[in-house]
């Protein structure tokens, strides 16, 4: 018993009154291993800055671009096919030149990045919410529930990703009236990318949930009859998030690429609300007539976005891996 009282004393010495929660969590981020790892990895800092730049310019596109590429009245045909500004024939303010209809390439890229980023982000969120819930349910309950959900996932994974996406967009556009097609183009694309990609999240969460479910803190909660959904959300989910965070980041890059692929194939965003993929598809037609800037700059932007996302994902995977610390 003497030992007991000793520990009590040392414990009270080290811990003073609890601080306000908000400030404590900010300080916790500043002092965390993750922040330290971020600061000491130049590639991660570079990628994050690049991505932030892309995201901010895309977000504020209407205020910083010289023209609205969607406003057909603002396009003048005599401004068409102007090469980039460092070329002799280049003209201010068309820094990266214009396309065959007099559309400013830089403006189109910034507006297009906006669409690409939104579709990529939304499809990751959609796939994540479906994958997390189904994976948690499968891992926690096991048995036939698990079998049904995971076999459904296996079926989806046995078909090529792009084929399912094309199928969904094709069926959706064929069955919709013309007026709705363009309005719903983005939601359909988000769905088409999310449907084949939830399986990966479900598998990851299921694997962690099966491990966590057997741990004693979950049994302790079951013992006092905490409801299953509470156990899943409050106990199991927070302990499965690390691998999910990494997968979601890497899949964000993949989703942007998928969107570009679909748009390039002509089943994605329509030409009057072009994403980066649509821009590349349109520019591709002029590549051999010497108008290289129409296709190259959107492609470079796409590369930069996916590259920075992947660099962040790679860093995150290493930083969160306890074996590499």
């Amino acid at each position, binding site marked *: *018993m003497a030992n007991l009282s000793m520990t009590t004393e040392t*414990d009270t010495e080290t*811990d003073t009154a*609890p601080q306000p929660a908000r400030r404590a969590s900010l300080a916790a981020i500043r002092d965390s291993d993750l922040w330290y790892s971020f600061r000491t990895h130049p590639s991660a800092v570079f990628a994050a800055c690049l991505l932030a730049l892309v995201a901010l310019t895309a977000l504020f596109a209407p205020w910083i671009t010289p023209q609205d590429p969607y406003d057909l009245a603002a396009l003048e045909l005599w401004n068409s096919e102007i090469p980039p500004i460092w070329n002799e024939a280049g003209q201010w303010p068309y820094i990266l030149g214009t396309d065959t209809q007099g559309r400013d390439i830089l403006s189109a890229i910034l507006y297009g990045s906006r669409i690409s980023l939104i579709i990529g982000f939304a499809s990751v969120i959609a796939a994540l919410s479906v994958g997390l819930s189904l994976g948690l349910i499968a891992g926690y309950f096991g048995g036939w529930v698990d079998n049904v959900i995971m076999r459904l996932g296996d079926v989806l994974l046995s078909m090529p990703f792009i084929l399912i996406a094309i199928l969904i967009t094709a069926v959706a556009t064929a069955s919709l009236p013309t007026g709705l097609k363009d309005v719903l183009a983005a939601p359909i694309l988000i769905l088409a990318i999310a449907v084949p990609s939830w399986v990966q999240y479900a598998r990851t969460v299921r694997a962690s949930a099966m491990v966590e479910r057997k*741990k*004693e803190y979950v*049994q302790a909660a*079951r013992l*006092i009859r905490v409801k299953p959904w509470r156990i899943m959300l409050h106990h199991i989910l927070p302990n499965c998030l690390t691998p999910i965070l990494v997968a979601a980041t890497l899949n964000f890059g993949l989703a942007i690429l998928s969107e570009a692929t679909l748009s390039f194939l002509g089943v994605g965003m329509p030409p009057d609300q072009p994403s980066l993929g649509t821009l590349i598809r349109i520019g591709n037609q002029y590549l051999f007539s010497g108008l290289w800037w129409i296709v190259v700059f959107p492609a470079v932007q796409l590369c930069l976005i996916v590259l920075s996302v992947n660099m962040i994902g790679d860093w995150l995977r290493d930083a969160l891996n306890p074996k590499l610390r």
Partner: protein
Amino acid sequence: MTRPILEVDALERRFDVSAPWLNRLLEGKPRRTLRAVDGVDFDILPGQTLALVGESGCGKSTIAKLVTGLHAPSDGKIRFNGDPTKMQMIFQDPFASLNPRWRVGRIVAEPLRTLFPETTDVQAEARVGELLKTVGLSPADAAKYPHEFSGGQRQRISIARALAGEPEFLVCDEPTSALDVSVQAQVLNLMKRLQRDMGLTYLFISHDLSVVRHMADVIAVMYLGRIAEIQPTADLFANPLHPYTRMLLDTIPDLEAPKRDRAPMGGEVPSPVSPPSGCTFHPRCPLAFDRCKRELPKRTPDVHDRRVACFAAAEGKTDV
């Protein structure tokens, strides 16, 4: 005579350990079941401690899970004469029994919030502080995470959490086996003090007879899912009846005679999937004779007041 708080009668739990259906079909293998608990019965009186002792794999942890309702029994009865919410459990591994992402305050308050939903935040905080003090920690520790504590401190957090549900009955599944010997004593003393102050009843599971001697009123020695012998603690140590109990007692080091001739524990625990015929202990038993290979000894009333399941002991044989 006082009514037992827990009555366990012919309890059985089988696990299906066969290969998946397709493999069984292709390889022509039969179904295989494992009898983790095989006809166990015991009673616990209020305020007492019953200890289950045995080597790993003998089914003691399964009994803990059956009693707490985490597993359903395959057969037999468990009667808990009390409010089922008044039963709590303390787990073996203090590193797995606390959610690593929750602060201690939230962990300890979980039973309060679940079992008494009308508790206000202020009441809960006050109660958590009180409970942490009871187990020898500081109320300020509520703001910390489990990884900031040592094994012994974590086990005390587990105890505080269990007490938050205001239990009458605690199932302790090897609560000290993951701790250093010096810390074990602290936790055991705390548990004894709590039992005295709050009138708790313990089902105490351990593989360590010296720990059990300190804690238990009654000891049940288990072997391969069955109770070999059940006796009050003093009787068991003074007069062990089952040859297996004597083997276990022989393995405890003795301070008085450190170099005495100790018979080493021979053999391994057989697989519970295919247990030996007759008395499952006979391949390791120095007293075994023909009948042990054929028949299963029962703890019948005429054999030493139902205390031992052994033919040799029934005939009065105690020495090799």
